[in-house]
């Protein structure tokens, strides 16, 4: 009798254990979902156990592989490149801020805003690991609660948005990327200030909740609207790659500018400040005066375009040719001294004034892009240039510009409209 019972128990033993183990996990999972509580203790232990190894691996990889490449393959070019990239990122970040500031300053009293407005306070962090779930998009960064990082903070790069802090541990934090299926971001278009919700869950980034009647052009920039209470308003999100009428709502797809999955170094926004969406330049670009006729000298000597049609390569070639001329260096000639490429070319004397009625001789490309830098790679997606401060365009008062900047979490500022429509009644 006893043996028969034991046999029966044994035959069902594995099944009973399976049911018990699975049910225990299901109940525990249901408890977490129901209460919305994250089991912090297990996660803290696991992350604290794994991140040191990951940090060590990253340090070893960085030092050994980097060392070999630096000294045997590329000497110190890699280090210089890293430093330049870092500097470039910082400058780009500053550039975004100053462009926003200048754009606002054009519409209103810039001095008041410059005093009232401060840039978002950020802390730099390095990505040290991925999530273990291949379908979920999350990464770990090497900054945690000891660096004043809190859950819900926005994570950005100078190029665009990356994600938000979803969990904080003492020495690390988890960042849920904007490409995760559960992540949604409030966005706003640059030209029409059309609001929508960015959703990258289906593998491609779509701006939802835009009516078919709304006008959204290809190449138009979308910025964070600040409505999600995560990202401060005014951070670049991406450009429109396709815009088609859909079933009820418009099908607008974006190309993210921040490359959230591939970012190695990110900025965590500790104290975000809403910024206005930079003004569009499309209309002004169409009305821009034509280029001045090229001087015969420059045309013959350089053989390259001198205007907005110039590529980065053209500009570099032109610069080097001018440097060579100034330093009496003949490219390709033997025994010609090496020119100093670090020297700045002497600016050319102003050309003769054009005839009365002719357009301004200011080069279009440089004049219309305040703060834009030539060092940026032409392949990277950049936020568009803001409207320039030129003497031909009288400053337009912006109705919302004189208002104080709202902190994160406060209701979003009203959408800028033409002065005629916002005059006090």
């Amino acid at each position, binding site marked *: 009798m*006893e*043996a028969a019972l*034991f*046999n029966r128990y*044994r035959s069902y*033993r*594995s099944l009973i*254990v*399976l049911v018990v*183990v*699975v049910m225990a*996990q*299901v109940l*525990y*999972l*249901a408890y*977490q*979902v129901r209460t919305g509580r*994250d*089991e912090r203790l*297990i*996660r803290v*232990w*696991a*992350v604290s*156990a*794994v991140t040191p*190894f*990951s940090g060590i*691996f*990253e340090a070893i*990889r960085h030092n050994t592989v980097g060392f070999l490449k630096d000294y045997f393959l590329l000497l110190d070019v890699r280090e210089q490149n890293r430093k330049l990239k870092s500097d470039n990122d910082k400058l780009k970040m500053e550039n975004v801020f100053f462009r926003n500031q200048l754009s606002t300053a054009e519409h209103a009293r810039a001095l008041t805003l410059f005093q009232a407005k401060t840039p978002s306070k950020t802390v730099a962090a390095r*990505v*040290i*690991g*991925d*999530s*273990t*779930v*291949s*379908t*979920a*998009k*999350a990464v*770990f960064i090497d900054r945690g609660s000891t660096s004043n990082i809190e859950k819900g903070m926005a994570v950005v790069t100078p190029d665009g948005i990356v994600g938000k802090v*979803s*969990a904080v541990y003492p020495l690390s934090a*988890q960042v*849920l990327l904007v490409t*995760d*299926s*559960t992540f949604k971001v409030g966005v706003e278009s640059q030209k029409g200030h059309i609001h929508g919700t960015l959703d990258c*869950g*289906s*593998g491609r980034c779509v701006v939802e909740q835009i009516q078919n009647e709304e006008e959204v052009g290809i190449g138009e920039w979308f910025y964070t609207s600040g409505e999600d209470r995560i990202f401060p308003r005014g951070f670049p999100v991406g450009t429109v790659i396709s815009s088609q009428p859909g079933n009820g709502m418009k099908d607008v797809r974006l190309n993210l500018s921040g490359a959230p*999955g*591939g970012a190695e170094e990110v900025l965590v926004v500790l104290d975000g400040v809403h910024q206005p969406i930079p003004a569009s330049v499309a209309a002004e670009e169409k009305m821009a005066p034509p280029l001045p006729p090229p001087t015969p000298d420059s045309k013959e000597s350089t053989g390259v375009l001198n205007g907005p049609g110039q590529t980065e390569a053209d500009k570099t070639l032109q610069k080097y040719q001018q440097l060579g001329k100034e330093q009496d260096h003949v490219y390709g000639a033997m025994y010609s001294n090496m020119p100093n490429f670090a020297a700045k070319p002497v600016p050319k004397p102003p050309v003769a004034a054009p005839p009365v009625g002719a357009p301004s001789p200011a080069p279009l490309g440089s004049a219309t892009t305040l703060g834009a830098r030539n060092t940026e790679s032409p392949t990277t997606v950049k936020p568009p240039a803001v409207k320039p401060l030129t003497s031909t365009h009288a400053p337009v008062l912006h109705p919302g510009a004189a208002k104080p900047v709202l902190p994160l979490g406060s209701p979003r500022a009203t959408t800028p409209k033409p002065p005629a429509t916002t005059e006090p009644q």
Partner: protein
Amino acid sequence: MNESSDHLLRSRRSSESLFSRFQVAGLVVLTLIAVISKFYLPRLIPSAVWLEVPLLLVIYFGLMRPDPVPALLFGAFVGISEDSLSPANLPIGMYGITKTLVGYFAASVSQRFNVGNSLIRLVLCFFFYCFHAFFYWVMRRALLNQVVPFDTQLTLLHGAFNIAVALPLYLILDRMKLSDEH
């Protein structure tokens, strides 16, 4: 009475062989390496997100152990370890449940097939990878109400990649087992 003592002896022998072949410390280290590899490897090789070394370990352990109980417990342990490093919006237990089932089924299958054959192992490995991916997707939809796309072609492709990794991995693990026996 004789039968029950025989069972006890057999179970003790099996647990002894478990400890002699795959020592607990070795298993923990292997699990740690597998989980860290999944955590860190995509940083080095971005296209390695499809690599499921922890799952391959659970399958191997299940196939090599005809007793389902240790296999399912090992699966639960590995799964919960992975869950603890998953995004905070995914509760702990998702991978735990999936890998528990994989461990149980792998051990059950090993009672009926000759899993010493590499081809059968790889076929089973491919099947369990697809089962794991599909069941995880079902759980996210059903239990968490999260709408996540399921790409069948991509899953099959990743399954094929994983068995390509499983082939040398299982050979190494077989070697380790043999060296322990000697």
